[in-house]
């Protein structure tokens, strides 16, 4: 592992999420091999890497969809290794999974409502609903439509909005730009910057390294299940290796 430009980049001090020596395996297949990384409070952290590098597997272990084979995960200092997903939501984590994970037979309204499943503060939920609809007005126009009839971009907006409805402190996003038109991607990344401005920390998995590294304060490059590089987002953007391998230059 090599650090890039870490000298000048100041990360926030307070730890939100920390993985130490994380291993994830599917039977004999080792998808994540001893990854240590952290998300500090208020940060956007990007995780980039090629297809099959283990990015999705890592997010799944963090959000309790998979039990790690080894290693330790802490959230706000508390051990959450192997904790089931539904308990992590109550602890402030939201995960918009790979492939968006919207419920096609449920309406946009119902999908969004499920995002607030654990919340009992009706007023707060209504306010957050108004907020996400102001971020993505398009969703209001499709309010009563079955989510399966939405376009890919609209589905992604719904997936992000639904994750925000739990009012998370940590948002995990798995390739929000996948398969979307450039304008939609621009919109979504502008909004992610907004959301982060409201104090939501983000762990962002992306193929689109350029966008991700521009947004992220800190970033990790994953190669075959291991952290190959880490550093400030802007510093990685300048790095020769990253430019050659991930920015197609």
């Amino acid at each position: 592992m090599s650090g890039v430009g870490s000298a000048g980049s100041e990360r926030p001090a307070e730890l939100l999420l920390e993985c130490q020596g994380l291993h994830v395996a599917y039977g004999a297949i080792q998808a994540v091999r001893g990854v240590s990384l952290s998300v500090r409070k208020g940060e956007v952290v990007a995780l980039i890497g090629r297809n099959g590098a283990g990015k999705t597997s890592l997010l799944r272990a963090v959000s309790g969809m998979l039990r790690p084979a080894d290693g330790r995960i802490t959230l706000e200092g508390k051990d959450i290794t192997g904790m089931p997903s539904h308990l992590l939501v109550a602890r402030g984590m939201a995960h918009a999974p790979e492939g968006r994970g919207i419920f096609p037979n449920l309406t946009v309204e119902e999908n969004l409502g499920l995002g607030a499943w654990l919340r009992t503060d009706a007023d707060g939920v209504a306010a957050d609903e108004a907020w996400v609809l102001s971020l993505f007005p398009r969703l209001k126009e499709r309010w009563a439509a079955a989510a399966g009839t939405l376009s890919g971009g609209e589905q992604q907006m719904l997936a992000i909005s639904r994750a925000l409805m739990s009012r998370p402190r940590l948002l995990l996003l798995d390739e929000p730009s996948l398969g979307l038109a450039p304008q939609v991607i621009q919109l979504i990344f502008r909004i992610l910057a907004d959301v982060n401005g409201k104090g939501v920390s983000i762990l962002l998995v992306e193929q689109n390294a350029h966008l991700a590294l521009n947004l992220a304060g800190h970033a990790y490059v994953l190669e075959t299940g291991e952290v190959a590089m880490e550093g400030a987002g802007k510093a990685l953007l300048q790095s020769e290796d990253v430019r050659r391998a991930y920015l197609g230059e």
Partner: protein
Amino acid sequence: MSDFLQHVINGLSAGTIYALVALGYTMVYGVLKLINFAHGDVMMMGTYVGYASALQFKQRGGFGMASVLAIFFLSMAACAAVGWLIERFAYRPLREKPKLTALITAIGISFAVSYGFQMDWGFLPGPNPRAFPEVIRRQPWLTLLDGEVTLWNWQVISFAVALGLMAGLQYLVFRTRFGRAMRAVSHDHRTAALLGIHTDRVIAVTFMLGSALAAGAGILFAIKDVKIEPLMGTQQGLKAFVAAVIGGIGNVPGAVVGAVLLGLVEEFVVGYTASSWRDAVAFGFLILVLLLRPEGLFGRVTAEKV
């Protein structure tokens, strides 16, 4: 004309009872993608609980509205408990295992229960059929065409109970918070969990609901056919399963339509040919529907965007 009308009445009355059982198959399939082959046997157990409580009421001076309601309630509550036990201890440990494992377990439970109930010790009833007490005194409710067509009071009650239970389920699934979670779990339980939904609990409650509906159906079958026996669950259960597949397994309205159609078709074929055809009809109908529409009448081949 009078024959025809009588067959319609009988077919609807049988079909709505099948529907209650078919709903259990389809709901469990919805949340677990598992054909719960023990479902019919749960129904049979519920019928015997109803039988035992009916005997008690009979000894204490007959049946009124309250005792009939109590019979339904006891039997449905008992089955909900049995459903919970089966899910918790037989299926949940196998949830992440290959589907075939759970399927074989289901068939195993089915055999264990249906043959276990044919043993003759303790509370087990033994192999001989029993006559279900006449909890509702059979009377014509309406006669038409100079008395050639009869609508019986028990048919009306059975129809009303079945429709009431189905309407309740429909409301629960499509109008309540729990129903929304159920539909989410049924599409993808991992994503549902990511939203904070306690999926194990949703699945357990779904099992309990399906089992309670089956118990209600069991009592209605017993009122209709009088004879009850340990193998009734396997027989009626299999047909209800066929109805669920005809309607499109996993689809709630589909199960109801499939079951009513099956009830009608069965009644008509038997009415106009011979009663020995009854059991062949269900499977003939199943093959026909699956040839024409492999996903069932209401099943959808869902195309999802990636």
